């Protein structure tokens, strides 16, 4: 299903973002509302390669907040199902120690939804 996109003011990417879920769209709208410069999936980090240099595992965080130099990954999965994502974030931090990334869990999204009256239904 194609998500209806508003005109973003603080979006700094060159291509229109193609959000994977309504939760991502809602987060983008909140960032935009508060004037936080953001990009959507601007960089893929290689986490593992074989000896020939082929990429075995990679990770593309959802948002990059350029003024904060912060990547944000959001997940609406239940806490019990986020092990794989946690592992990716941990690997990214190990392999790219200078990169700042924050993982927003379902509970964080629910708190934001309560605070900002978001519609996170997927």
């Amino acid at each position, binding site marked *: 299903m194609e998500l209806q996109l*508003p*005109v973003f*003011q603080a979006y700094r990417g060159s291509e229109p973002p193609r959000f994977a879920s309504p939760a991502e769209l809602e987060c983008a*709208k*909140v*960032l*935009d*509302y*508060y*004037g*936080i410069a953001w990009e959507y999936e601007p960089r893929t980090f290689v986490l593992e390669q074989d000896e020939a240099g082929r990429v075995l595992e990679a990770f593309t965080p959802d948002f990059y*907040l350029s003024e*904060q130099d*912060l990547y*944000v990954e959001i997940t609406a999965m239940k806490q019990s199902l986020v092990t794989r994502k946690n592992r990716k974030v941990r690997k990214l931090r190990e392999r790219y120690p200078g990169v700042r990334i*924050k993982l*927003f869990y379902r*509970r*964080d999204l629910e*708190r*934001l939804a*309560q*605070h*900002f*009256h*978001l519609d996170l239904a997927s």
Partner: protein
Amino acid sequence: MYLTAAELSHRVREMGAEIAHDYAGREPVLVCSLKASVVFTADLSRAIPILHAIDFVELAGYGSARMGGHQQIRVLKDLDLDVRGRDIVIVEDVIDTGLTLNYLVRTLELRGPASVAAATLLDRPYRRLVDDLPVRYVGFTVPDELYVGYGFDIDERYRELPDLRLLNL
């Protein structure tokens, strides 16, 4: 119960003394961000034994009924005072992502104050999206729960409770 009225009062008095020490001879302006921080601001003001002013600002939070279809944050109630050359202490109920405070700081800095700092009753630093904020005074760093009382509400109820209580939905 999360924090009793006595515990809140004790910590607020400590914060007031700290602010009075830091701003001695400078007559700062407490900027209360409506509405939840009203109770905290009133107590904090009375705990600061130096000359200071109080003013109020209200922003249209995302998703609020007063957002009015706007896609950018805006000021609903602006300051009455001219803050050029003044020392500002923004008084917040809670700092979470830092999005609101970041906007308020940037907006006030455009007015040429001598300095801008923030005092918050509650802090949730683990969910911060904007780190570069002048948060100088923190009452309590709190777990990820919902609270009512001492100015915090649920659907405009329970702000009047003298203590801070956990809300179980």
